């Protein structure tokens, strides 16, 4: 017996310091998983005490144990089916009365319970005195006062847990439900007669639940007995009887009784404090929730969020990037070396893979700061205030007050990131709004898209740059809101909604440990779950882009160009002391040396670091170095120029080959087929392929698209180009492309985050599919419509903006169907 592990469940209402207790008990041994089938997090950890291992599961904080929310269902299921040895009920000593509401429900589940009166420091502060022995006797449970924040009472709790696990005594108290008792007895009798439930569940608890009309319990009964319907109908009749006789819905009666009981205990064993706990918070709220100041403060908080995470985060990436770059350099060094224009497959694959993963890892500083700030907002108690201020606006669009933070993270005016935005949707209690929020976040301003917009605006809307930037920054919200409304009216129509009723907890100073802990946890989740899949997909993409590759004929063409470039170079340095050193293989060695030097130089800052770098490279190969840094040596300078020329030609060749390879590849061919459709959006096949290359091949989206849309530098007249049959790329094209990119399907990382948050592949696919459809429809409409009406890009922009604004206002005014009768 003594070597068996003890399983303990931690249960309590929100804001009782339950996580502090959990952390104090389990320390660093925690890990997070998911309860099967739902997206609720399961926190567990363990500790050793008196030679025994105790596993602690931190159940989600809930106010009650009904079956209306997944958190409550999961808590009940755990207690009923995982059969922990005992439950530690964490309560707020400064307001024990309200915590008891949950305590009674736990007691009714007939499991040994330890009542933990936490936050005793707070209770003391307001002058609350509790007769713990009295309560212990009255309820028949061990009572342990603690102030876990200050580390007090921990040992007593360990002892109480150990004792309760040994003793296994079930509580003595039972609430007398007065006039409902005969009804409960009837149900219990039926249960005993017609089902086997009493063998598995506490009969009285089942009876109470059935009188409450609890859905999950009804399911349990159904699962247990073939004659369940008979029993359930009986229960329904009883409920109806009760209500007509006593004029109160049974579930409300039961809740009422619990409060009366709690009241009774308070009268007997608790001396109330001088003042309510929340007065300081209330005073703060007078400012924070003020008509005028409230929204201003909200904007301020959001601004700080952006500033610290995105702006400062990017600064930090300037320091972390070199680390990632080193990994890449390492990859470059260990894979087979490239030839002048030949790149070994393995090398290409490895570098591609490293680049894809680095791209995501590079985000980590930003994500870490973001997650940390979110944890601060959560812990401090400000989040409910955000929801309080914004709820009315958001609920008009089928969203929820708690959608505020996720949307801010996704990018409202400035660029954000959809991944933390989607992950922040965890807290939205209402299923329908939660899904709606998750589905529209990818449409908001993604930071990574900014360079693309800027490029197009600089070319096509240069004269109206400010307006164009304003347009692109705000249009995403004007599209997201109506889309959300439409989604909630159609696809999401039948999803569960939840009451808004929400507690505004006292403000509370977040702990550094808590914040850092959660930030680290979430970053780790990101790496574990998202980066891994993206890496896998990167490999697939590589294959699609590599094959079938350059055919033999073309290879000959490129080889010829290569030979000429090399020959030209060699002739240019003939007669110089370098001519011998750069023959044959040495030339390639020089090229790689030059490349390495350039890469290293890009990351070197400051004169001292620079001279160290130079010294290193000079020592490695003095001859090569002379060419790299010729100084005043005229001959060396000549060689330098010739070499740079050669290097440039190599780059050009590599680029050309890469482009041709992509055009030929499976992925590239894919760009040609949709042309009949995309044509209406102004995308001919070259644009499609460019889009593919730009996004899939990470060939600078900026460059590829720029090259495609920019008027030829060589001064080829527009008429001449049109005569050649090429449609001029106009500002209308640019606008269409920008809009398409706004609505663009979410990046893979976001899609994975959607899958994690919704727990469903179906929704992930939908979240990828509908923006595609919408994007294409909008692109086609804007381009074809704009062309038909002969609008310029700017005019179309204004027209579209007006439409979007009108749609937003219109959908916002739609009346919502009455939720409650």
């Amino acid at each position, binding site marked *: 017996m003594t070597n068996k592990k003890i399983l303990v469940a931690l249960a309590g209402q929100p804001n009782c310091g339950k996580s502090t207790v959990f952390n104090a008990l389990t320390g660093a041994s925690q890990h997070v998983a998911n309860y099967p089938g739902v997206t609720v997090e399961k926190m567990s950890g363990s500790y050793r005490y008196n030679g025994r291992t105790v596993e602690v599961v931190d159940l989600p904080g809930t106010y009650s144990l009904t079956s209306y929310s997944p958190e409550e269902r999961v808590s009940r299921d755990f207690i009923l089916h995982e059969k922990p040895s005992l439950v530690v009920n964490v309560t707020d000593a400064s307001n024990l009365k309200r915590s008891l509401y949950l305590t009674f429900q736990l007691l009714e589940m007939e499991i040994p319970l330890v009542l933990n009166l936490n936050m005793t420091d707070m209770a003391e502060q307001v002058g609350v005195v509790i007769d713990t022995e009295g309560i212990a006797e009255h309820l028949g449970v061990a009572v342990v006062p603690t102030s876990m924040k200050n580390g007090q009472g921990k040992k007593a709790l360990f002892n109480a847990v150990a004792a309760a696990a040994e003793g296994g005594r079930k509580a003595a108290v039972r609430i007398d439900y007065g006039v409902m008792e005969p009804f409960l007895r009837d149900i219990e009798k039926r249960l005993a007669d017609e089902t086997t439930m009493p063998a598995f569940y506490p009969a009285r608890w089942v009876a109470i639940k059935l009188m409450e009309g609890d859905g999950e319990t009804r399911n349990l009964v159904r699962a247990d007995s073939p004659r369940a319907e008979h029993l359930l109908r009986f229960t329904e009749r009883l409920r109806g009887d009760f209500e007509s006789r006593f004029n109160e819905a049974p579930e409300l009666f039961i809740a009422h009784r619990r409060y009366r009981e709690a009241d009774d205990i308070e009268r007997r064993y608790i001396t109330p404090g001088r003042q309510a706990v929340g007065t300081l918070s209330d005073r703060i709220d007078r400012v924070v929730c003020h008509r005028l100041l409230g929204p201003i403060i909200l904007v301020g908080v959001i601004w700080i969020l952006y500033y610290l995470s995105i702006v400062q985060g990017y600064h930090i990436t300037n320091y972390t990037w070199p680390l990632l770059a080193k990994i890449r350099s390492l990859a470059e060094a260990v894979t087979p070396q490239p030839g002048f224009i030949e790149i070994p497959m393995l090398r290409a694959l490895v570098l591609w893979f490293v680049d894809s993963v680095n791209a995501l890892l590079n985000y980590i500083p930003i994500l870490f700061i973001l997650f940390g700030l979110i944890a601060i907002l959560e812990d401090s108690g400000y989040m409910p205030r955000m929801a309080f201020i914004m709820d009315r606006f958001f609920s008009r669009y089928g969203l929820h007050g708690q959608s505020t933070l996720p949307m801010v993270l996704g990018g409202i005016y400035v660029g954000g*990131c959809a991944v933390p935005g989607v992950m922040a949707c965890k807290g939205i209690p209402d299923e329908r709004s939660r899904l709606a929020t998750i589905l529209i976040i990818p449409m908001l301003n993604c930071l990574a898209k900014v360079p693309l917009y800027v490029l197009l605006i600089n070319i096509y809307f240069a004269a109206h740059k400010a307006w164009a930037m304003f347009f692109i920054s705000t249009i995403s919200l004007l599209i997201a809101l109506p889309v959300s409304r439409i989604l909630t009216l159609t696809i999401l129509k039948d999803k569960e909604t939840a009451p808004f009723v929400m507690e505004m907890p006292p403000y509370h100073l977040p702990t550094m440990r808590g914040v850092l802990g959660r930030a680290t946890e979430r970053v780790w989740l990101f790496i574990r779950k998202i980066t891994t899949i993206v890496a896998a997909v990167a490999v697939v993409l590589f294959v699609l882009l590599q094959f079938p590759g350059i055919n033999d004929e073309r290879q000959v063409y490129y080889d010829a160009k290569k030979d000429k470039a090399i020959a030209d170079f060699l002739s240019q340095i003939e007669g110089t002391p370098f001519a011998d050193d750069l023959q044959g293989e040495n030339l390639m060695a020089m090229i790689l040396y030059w490349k390495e030097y350039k890469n290293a130089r890009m990351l070197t800052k400051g004169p001292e670091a620079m001279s160290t770098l130079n010294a290193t490279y000079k020592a490695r190969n003095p001859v090569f170095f002379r060419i790299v840094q010729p100084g005043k040596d005229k001959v060396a300078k000549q060689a330098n120029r010739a070499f740079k020329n050669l290097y440039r030609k190599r780059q050009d060749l590599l680029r050309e080959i890469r482009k041709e390879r992509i055009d030929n590849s499976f992925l590239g061919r894919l760009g040609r087929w949709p042309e009949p459709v995309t044509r209406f959006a102004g995308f001919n096949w070259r644009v499609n392929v460019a889009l593919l290359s730009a996004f899939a091949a990470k060939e600078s989206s900026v460059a590829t698209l720029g090259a495609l849309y920019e008027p030829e530098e060589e001064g080829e007249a527009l008429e001449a180009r049109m005569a050649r049959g090429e449609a001029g790329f106009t500002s209308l094209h640019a606008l269409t492309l920008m809009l398409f990119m706004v609505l663009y399907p979410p990046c893979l990382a976001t899609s994975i985050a959607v899958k994690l948050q919704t727990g469903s592949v179906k929704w992930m696919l939908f979240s990828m599919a509908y923006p595609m459809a919408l994007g294409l429809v909008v692109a086609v409409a804007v381009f074809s419509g704009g062309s038909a009406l002969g609008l310029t890009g700017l005019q179309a922009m204004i027209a579209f903006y007006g439409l979007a604004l009108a749609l937003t206002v219109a959908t916002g005014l739609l009346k919502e169907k009455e939720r409650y009768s």
Partner: protein
Amino acid sequence: MKPIVSAILFMAIVCAVPAAAHTPLCACYNNGDDTVTCEGGFSDGSSAAGVQMRVEDASGKMLIKGKMDANSEFNFKKPDGTYRVIFDAGEGHVIEIDGKDILE
């Protein structure tokens, strides 16, 4: 029917790509012959071709305007006096380099 199907397929694949996490990179070097070369890039390996480059004097007046070429390079004649080079790929992706930090 086929074009629509392939349009969907096309976009499905295009979307299966990680967002480019651009940390912009840019470094400039004095070539010793009165010209300066700037090289640019992004942390995910994307080239910076097409990104707008500006050279400004101490007062912020624009002296030279151009773009990174196809090789992510931007060459310009070194101005007299103090100057700054700005790599501008949009908000959050801007790098400013002080002329006096540009070494050989």
